[in-house]
Structures are given as C-alpha cells and as structure tokens.
C-alpha cells in the first residue's frame, strides 16, 4: 500500500530539510525568516500536492514556494520590509518582485546548488563562541528543537533560546559571511568545523553530569554531520578521519554499559556485540584518509588508534606497541595532558604497570590533570595490578571524588569495593 501524502511529505522534510534551509538562508540572509518560510512552504505543499500530486523536484518546489512567500510578504507588509532591508534590496536587484515564480511550471525550477557547506562554515565560524557554534549547528543542520538541544546540554530551554538568538544576531550584525572560505584559510576553518562536530559527538558519548552515560541522539547527529562533510569536502583527509574515529567509538555503544547502565571497560566488553558495519565503514574511511602521503594529523592518528582497538579480536591481540607509538606522534601534533595519560596507559600495557605508574607520577606532579578523575583511576588500576591494594584504595577514593556522572561513580565504587575486600587475592 502506498504511504499517505503526509507520510511522504514527512520523509521529504526529514531528507531535504537541511539542504532546503541552507539554500533559503543563502537567499533570504536571515536564519529565522528562512525557517519560517520553509515551514509555510511545507504547509502549502501538503495542501497543493493533495490535488496536483508530488512534483518531480519536491526540494526545488519547496525552495521556490518559500522564496515566493517571502517576496509576497515583502510586497504586502511595510513592517516586514523595514525589518529586512537587505532582503528588500536583494529582491529588487534580482528583479524578482516583478516576476514571481509560477507554480504550474515546476519543471522549469532550477536545481538549486547545495548550500550546506556554506551553512556549516557560517555556523562554525571561529568568531562565534564554541557553545554557540554547537547550538546553532544542531538547530540548523540537524533540525533539533531548542528544547532538545537544551536538554542535551543540561541547560534551561530559556538559556538555550537566548544563546541561539544572540548567535544569529551576531552573524547578521557583524556580517559573518555565508560562504565557503577561500583556499588559504580553508584548512584552519575546516578544523574549527571538525572540532565542533567532534564536540557534539563527545557530548553525546560521555554525558558531563547526570545519570545517562550516552546520549545517542548527539552521537548519531555528529556522525550524520561527519558523513555530510565527507561528501561535501571529499578531497580532504581530516573529515574522513574524524568520521572513522566517531564510527569506531560508536561501534562499541551497545557494550560500553551493561543492562544496569554500568560502565564496562574496553577489555571486558563483548566484542561480538560491536557494530561490524560501523567498524567496516570506519576502516574504509580511514583508508581513504590515509591514501597518498603518510600524513599524521590529529584525527588521522586518533582514528588509527581507535582502529587498532576496534579490529583486535580479543584484548590480548591489541597491538600496544603501535598504540604507544601513535600516542607519541599525537603528542607532537596535538599535545594535551589527556594524550600523555593515554600514552602512559599504553606503556603500562606494553612494558608493565611500573612503567605506566612512572609516567603517571610525572603527570600528577605537573598538576595539569588535577581535576580529572581518570588520572587517579588509572593509577589505582595499575597499583591494583602490582598488588599494592592500600595505595589503590587511596587513588580510587580520589577518583570517585572527581567523577562527573553516576555511572562513573558506580563503576569506581565497585572497583574500590573489590580492591578493599580481603577475600580477593592479586
């Protein structure tokens, strides 16, 4: 049975919304107006298509209908004209006010170019605060509602609404361009886009507080954005590497927590439950990112590390020597104390707990990870392996005090209980 018109329009909305919106923002130069006109055009489509049937180019139809609605408002409404003087000028220049689109001849609609890349670069402009970039990207490119974004980032809806108003106002009033940056700044600007996408992913992957450890929606949206970037910027290795990295992490989603919502460590996860399709897509993406010269940029190295874990058949088969070497490279490209921590853990796996503890002690002395629960947690785990249960207890307690969410606290408490229990021998 063919699906109903409203179902079909709903599908068109889901599939084409971000591309339609990107085109309309480019035409109307206003985020809110573009969205309002798009909604009206879809409402009109439901009415008109019930009589005429779905046109052959529904996306172009919607874009044209939305533009026509804006022009129509412009001609009828003086307040509206005053509110959008730029639009008025654009329309006058194009001579479109005299020549509105005719709906009967939809075959003549132009195939509007894909403006989503321009939209991404505008939403992730470095002149915008990071949290504003994230919010605007989720709102415009992913179509999340203000309430959904607010819930995902644990802020009141009112706060998120104000953040979105402010960021759109800055884009308009500071004249942030709606364009793909020129070649000489493309790499730096693309990096800002990737940071924002990865931030959305990590926000979804590890909730910073509260009960749920994984907020799947954000991970899914970040991967969707990653795929979009790969298709829009096909000749760059970084988007493919970032997508690979996210896919490898996401492949373990089902096994990262148990039925009770408790954390399961990588070495204890049921590898048969890892998402094979995601891993294969990740391997493919990583291959396309590493063809040509051996470039060791941040996401490429991180994806290579994640690939080793994702493709190891059992924990013992993990190539720790290669992982330690890759963390060494990553330290040069993108130095951070968290990378130092991971390198120390890899060294512990390679050469034994003492080697890891030595590095972690250096890191602790530097004070750069004083607030990070995984430093004392890693120390506790290695001390536990060495049989120094007293020191392990001290470090687990320190980690628990710093843990950011309930699953982390529960996990660390369980380890603490185990190491404190006199019946367990190491």
């Amino acid at each position: 049975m063919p699906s109903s018109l409203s179902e079909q329009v709903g599908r068109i909305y889901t599939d084409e919304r971000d591309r339609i919106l990107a085109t309309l923002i480019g035409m109307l130069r206003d985020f809110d107006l573009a969205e309002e006109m798009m909604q009206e055009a879809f409402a009109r489509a439901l009415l008109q298509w019930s009589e005429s049937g779905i046109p052959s180019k529904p996306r172009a139809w919607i874009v044209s209908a939305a533009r026509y609605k804006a022009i129509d408002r412009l001609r009828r409404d003086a307040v509206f004209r005053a509110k959008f003087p730029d639009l008025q000028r654009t329309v006058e220049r194009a001579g479109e006010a005299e020549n509105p689109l005719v709906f009967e001849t939809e075959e003549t609609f132009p195939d509007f170019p894909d403006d989503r890349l321009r939209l991404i670069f505008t939403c992730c402009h470095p002149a915008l605060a990071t949290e504003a970039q994230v919010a605007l990207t989720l709102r415009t490119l992913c179509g999340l509602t203000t309430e959904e974004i607010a819930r995902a980032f644990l802020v009141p809806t009112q706060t998120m609404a104000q953040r979105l108003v402010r960021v759109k106002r800055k884009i308009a009033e500071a004249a942030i361009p709606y364009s793909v940056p020129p070649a000489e700044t493309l790499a730096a600007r693309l990096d800002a886009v990737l940071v924002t996408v990865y931030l959305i992913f990590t926000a979804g992957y590890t909730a910073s507080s509260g009960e749920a450890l994984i907020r799947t929606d954000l991970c899914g949206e970040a991967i969707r954005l990653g795929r979009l970037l790969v298709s829009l910027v096909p000749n760059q290795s970084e988007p493919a590497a970032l997508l690979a990295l996210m896919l490898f992490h996401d492949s373990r989603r089902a096994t990262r927590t148990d039925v009770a919502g408790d954390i399961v460590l990588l070495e204890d996860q049921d590898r048969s439950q890892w998402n094979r399709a995601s891993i294969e897509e990740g391997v493919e993406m990583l291959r396309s990112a590493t063809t040509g010269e051996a470039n060791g940029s941040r996401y490429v190295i991180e994806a290579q590390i994640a690939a080793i874990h994702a493709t190891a058949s059992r924990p013992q088969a993990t190539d720790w020597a290669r992982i330690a070497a890759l963390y060494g490279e990553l330290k040069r490209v993108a130095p951070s104390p968290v990378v130092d921590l991971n390198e120390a853990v890899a060294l512990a796996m390679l050469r034994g707990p003492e080697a890891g503890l030595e590095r972690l002690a250096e890191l602790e002395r530097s004070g750069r990870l004083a607030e990070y629960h995984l430093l004392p947690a890693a120390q506790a785990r290695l001390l536990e392996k060495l049989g120094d249960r007293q020191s392990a207890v001290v470090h687990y307690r320190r980690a628990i005090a710093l843990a950011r969410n309930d699953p982390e606290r529960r996990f660390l408490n369980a380890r603490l209980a185990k190491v404190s229990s006199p019946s367990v021998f190491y």
Partner: protein
Amino acid sequence: MQYLLLIYSNESAAPDTASPQFTAGMKAYTDFTKEIKESKNLLGGNRLQSAATATTVRVRDGKTLLTDGPFAETAEQLGGYYLIEAANLDEALGIAARIPGAQWGTIEVRPVYPMQQSA
C-alpha cells in the same frame, strides 16, 4: 559594512620613543596604513595619547561628574583605532590581524551600527 578596530596594548611595556624598536613599530604602522588606504578599506584612524591623559564624563541629575583616568582600569589600554570599510567580518578580521599592534597587543573588532541615511 563599517568596522571599528580598537587597538589595545600594555602602555607600560611600550618601547621607549628613542629605541629602534619604537622606530620599527612606527614604520610598520605607516606601511600598514598606506596599504589599507590603497586598498580603499581605510575610512579613518588615529593613535591616542596615553590612558593617563583620559578624563571620563558622566552627567547624573543634571550634574556633570568628571573623573581622572580611563573608563576602566585594564591590563591593556586603548591606544588607537582604525575605522574601516570591509565586505564582511572575515575581511575585517583579516585586516585586524595585519595591524602591527596585533603582534603584541589585542585588537577588538566592532561592527558599526548602520544609521538610516536621513536627508
């Protein structure tokens, strides 16, 4: 679009006017100003006397209150400005980054509010 580029730097760390550093800085500013004049971006600009020469004025209940010194005591002080015309923020930011003072101080880029052109 017009943008005001506000140039902030630490006055106390500024090189002595007799030093070669100062001369080099002056030349860099002269060259830069010439460049943005030729590219038709320059609308105006000036170097300011030191923040110690500033006086702030407030009128409250019809009374004029004067205070010696700048509006806010900050680590870096407003030392000059350019008013430029640029196509968009990216062009304005690119010009701001070329201001010699960006190498040691801070440039604040502010879009100018577009006033309605009245007769």
